[in-house]
């Protein structure tokens, strides 16, 4: 029951006003990942057009950092090609949020992995999944 972690203004902005919240009807890909450390869960939906992420939305059960990360990763992903998007790392997401407290870095894994899982799901559905990214879908961080 101890005190609150110090979050950057950007984290608080994305927590209070998260971008891209909700589901996508008939998504092209969905990724659901859990954070085994704390039990938090993120679900990320994507729409794909011309090999690019046309839309991305999320639902998250998690702490302030998890929600802000979810919001930021959907922002970063939108408009990127699938190959660019799959390369987004949790560190990138965290620095786009002006950093996370060290104890909260693990929360940003949710964002990276949910996005990878959603892209993987899409590729599998297309039947054209590149072998190399197959594992990421079920991995938990």
């Amino acid at each position: 029951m101890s005190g609150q972690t110090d979050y950057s203004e950007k984290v608080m902005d994305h927590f209070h006003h998260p971008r891209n919240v909700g589901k996508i009807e008939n998504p092209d890909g969905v990724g659901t990942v859990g954070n085994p450390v704390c039990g938090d869960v993120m679900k990320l939906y994507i729409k794909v057009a011309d090999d690019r992420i046309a839309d991305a939305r999320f639902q998250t059960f998690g702490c302030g950092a998890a929600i802000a990360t979810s919001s930021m990763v959907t922002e970063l992903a939108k408009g990127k090609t699938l190959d660019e998007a799959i390369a987004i790392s949790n560190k990138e997401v965290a620095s786009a949020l002006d950093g996370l407290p060290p104890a909260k870095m693990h929360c940003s894994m949710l964002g990276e992995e949910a996005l990878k899982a959603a892209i993987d799901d899409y590729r599998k559905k297309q039947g054209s999944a590149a072998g190399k990214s197959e594992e990421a879908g079920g991995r938990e961080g």
Partner: protein
Amino acid sequence: MKTIYLDHNATTPLRAEVLAAMTEIYENISGNPSSVHFLGRTARKRLEAGRERVAEAVGARPEEIVFTGGGTEADNLAVQGIAYAYRSKGDHIITSAIEHPAVLAACRFLEKEGFSVTYLPVSREGLVDPGELEEAIRPATILISVMTANNETGVIQPITEIGRIARDRKIPFHTDAIQGLGKIPLSVEEMGVDLMSLSGHKVYGPQGVGALYIRKGVRVRPLTYGGHHERGKRPGTENLAGIVGFGAACRLAVENLESESDRLRLLRDQLCSGISERIPRVKLNGAPGLRLPNTVNLSFEYVEGEGILLGLEEQGIAAATGSACTSGELAPSHVLSAMGVEAALAQGSVRFSLGRENTLEDILFTVDALVPVVKRLREMSPFFEPEPAESQGDKR
């Protein structure tokens, strides 16, 4: 923005009267209570007056009070102090799974030192079962330590019953009464305890000062060595201003205990009913009828506690959560886990602990603030399925 502080189980604001008593010491008293000259004797008198006030608050004799550097130290002095003093008689300790880390970590340390410890489970309501405790007693049992009231849920334990068992079996009995002081009546005689931990900053006194009641005849090995202060049980020049402040706080806390408890209970129940009327799917953690009057611990299904706290913070409201996410620990609250609360619900738990400055207006404001915060987080949650029409959907 107005601040609404609803985290009094974590710490309480210093009362003006307490600050005045402490300032008076800093301004006017310059002697060391151990010095024999007149300045020392004046300081000693003030020290002993502080001791009397703390003793009075729990029905103890002043010579049975040892001042410490806070509640954590009092717990350690009790647990480690008894363990080592009675080691020749046995090596078994009984405590509960829901104790404060000050007791639990001391017990875990003692396990490494070769003691064996039974951590009693608690019921879904957060209660230790005295029958189970009695069954756990062995010939080698040298200490029973069960808290008076839990800091997270406010659940009050059956201390008098446990005290009777301990006395029958002639086993030293310690209770951490830090959350009970000033909220429920405490009496070392009626409760049948041999050692009792107290802390200043939970009763509108200063931080960093606490006390351990040690019944006459009960032996305790000190944690540190030095001078003869506090009868050798806690050597070091006393924190005079802190002790005087603690004494003043104790007196004030017991003076209005009944009326203030009634007032807080009413407010707490108004908070609870306000929340349950306007927010569906909220669960109470802890026995409804056996709680500190100021405390309520609620789980908001489908959401995580830190998010709720951040949302409340934006409105100037400070509360606490048993969620792992806030504490920097890896697992959610050990207290809620011991009660069998599912991990996801423990993650969504929020503790409101009320105190002197809180008014009905604060409570109504908090309920109003909470409704949209929870609604927003639920709409974001992958677990949440809006309920058909009447219950959730058309509320706002």
